[in-house]
């Protein structure tokens, strides 16, 4: 499982780095092309540039989504079944995409990932021992779960917005809340753990006589 985890982290970092390089390339291109008569933004050249950027970034966004979808089931599913479950999700999504509609196919993948991640969060909250986490500590694991769910929701919102803005508000604000609270729990897990222990000590004073302190 550890090799699988590191592999996914490496893939995610490489995809993010590639997105960063693409963004830098785009910025430098706009700088170079900015002397278009009448201004570059809004010009025909700008539309062409945006189309090239969209085409170039699409495989990277797909890779990012796939790495997230690969990342999510591993918390809940044992390694022996992980590849088959992940492959099953992809095959069903691909089949729906071909038979019905690519957006519906993508929705199947996203909604499955969202359902699994929501289950992971519930299991974390009830203290299930059968979850596979790289990090230790309740707040860190809950933070990781919320962050992943928020990220999947945000990407799904971006995808949905290209066709409909009906559900945008609900999905976007849920994603924003989950990402922010997930980051707070992950980054401040030590402080929260200390606070939680302190609160528990204050609420539950010791009933036994304290042991005498040694000099």
């Amino acid at each position, binding site marked *: 499982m550890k090799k699988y985890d590191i592999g996914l*982290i490496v893939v995610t*970092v490489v995809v*993010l*780095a590639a*997105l*960063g390089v693409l*963004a*830098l390339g*785009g*910025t430098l291109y*706009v*700088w170079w092309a*900015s002397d278009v008569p009448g*201004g*570059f*933004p*809004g010009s025909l050249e*700008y*539309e062409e*540039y*945006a189309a090239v*950027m*969209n085409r170039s970034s699409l495989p990277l966004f797909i890779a990012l989504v796939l790495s997230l979808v690969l990342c999510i089931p591993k918390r809940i599913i044992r390694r022996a079944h992980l590849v088959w479950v992940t492959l099953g999700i992809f095959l069903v999504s691909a089949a729906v995409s071909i038979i019905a509609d690519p957006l519906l196919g993508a929705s199947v993948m996203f909604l499955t990932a969202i359902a699994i991640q929501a289950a992971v969060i519930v299991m974390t909250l009830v203290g299930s021992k059968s979850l596979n986490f790289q990090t230790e500590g309740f707040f860190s694991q809950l933070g990781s779960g919320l962050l992943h769910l928020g990220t999947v929701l*945000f990407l799904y919102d971006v995808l949905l*917005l290209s066709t409909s*803005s009906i559900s*945008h*508000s609900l999905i*976007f604000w849920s*994603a*924003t809340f989950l*990402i*922010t609270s997930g*980051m*707070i729990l992950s*980054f*401040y897990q030590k402080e929260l753990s200390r606070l939680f222990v302190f609160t528990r000590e204050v609420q539950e004073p010791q009933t036994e006589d304290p042991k005498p302190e040694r000099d």
Partner: protein
Amino acid sequence: MGTIGTLILIVATASGVALAILSATGKAETLRTYLLVGASGSLLLAFGFIIYFHLQINTLLPLVNPFDGQIIGTYKIPPWIEEEKLLFWSLGFSLVAIAINLRHSTQRMIITGVNVLLVALLAIMLFASNPFHPLLPNFHAEIIGYQQALMSGDPNAAFGTLQGLIGKMMGFYNSTYMWTHPPLLFASYAAFGATLIGSIAMLGRSERSVGDAVAYDYGRFGFIALTLGLLLGYPWALLAWEGQSWWWDPKINMAIMMWVFYAAYLHARLYKHRPTMWTATAILGISSFGVLVLTYLTTYLIPGIHSVVG
């Protein structure tokens, strides 16, 4: 108001310069505290002047229908637009500087670095981006034609310019997102200033572990503020730039770069005790700030929907 505001900024900068010099010597701790309070207090006062100026705009410059004199809307401009944003960033960083000066008063390299960065921000603001000289030049240029037409008594001419002003008032100046998206980003910029200084200290010998703690303490806060700020820019962009190509705008590209760099810094730090990763983490912390500066400058250098250059 412009002259008084500039004088306040001069006092803040002079206090900052004296503070940075004294920090480097490690002497006169009490005087340094006074100077730091003086610099931050001056910035706070300058910010108060800006808020007062914006309240005056709200009260004295309503948009009125030139035909019947009815008020259509009033400006509720946040105090971090145009050149004011560097003042807001500096004010935020001065609060960070106070916290670091108080908490790490014996770490000479770190507090000197923080105070030098504060002076750099103040000097850039004073000489290249003074919010008081002139006050809101772009807003002034937008509204002056309408005001002149209104005073000339030609309602048709005033009405012609009014439509564009209403659109910008509702979509930009009075937008709710204007009160969340920019201040969160500038709060993150202020925190990342400490990450820069902490990362530089990580490369030294005497204050490396404190440098790492300072860099991470402010880096994690900055990253949360940055992420939330960028997320809140998304629905605003959808509303304000509907039908326009904004997705690959240079400023947004650079913001993605900046986010990726700081994400890489925070991830690298998880492995900081592995060989070469300590140095790599420090270099990422430093280079991320370089990307931050480039992102800020993109507004002034590269044309785009987010920029002030054509």
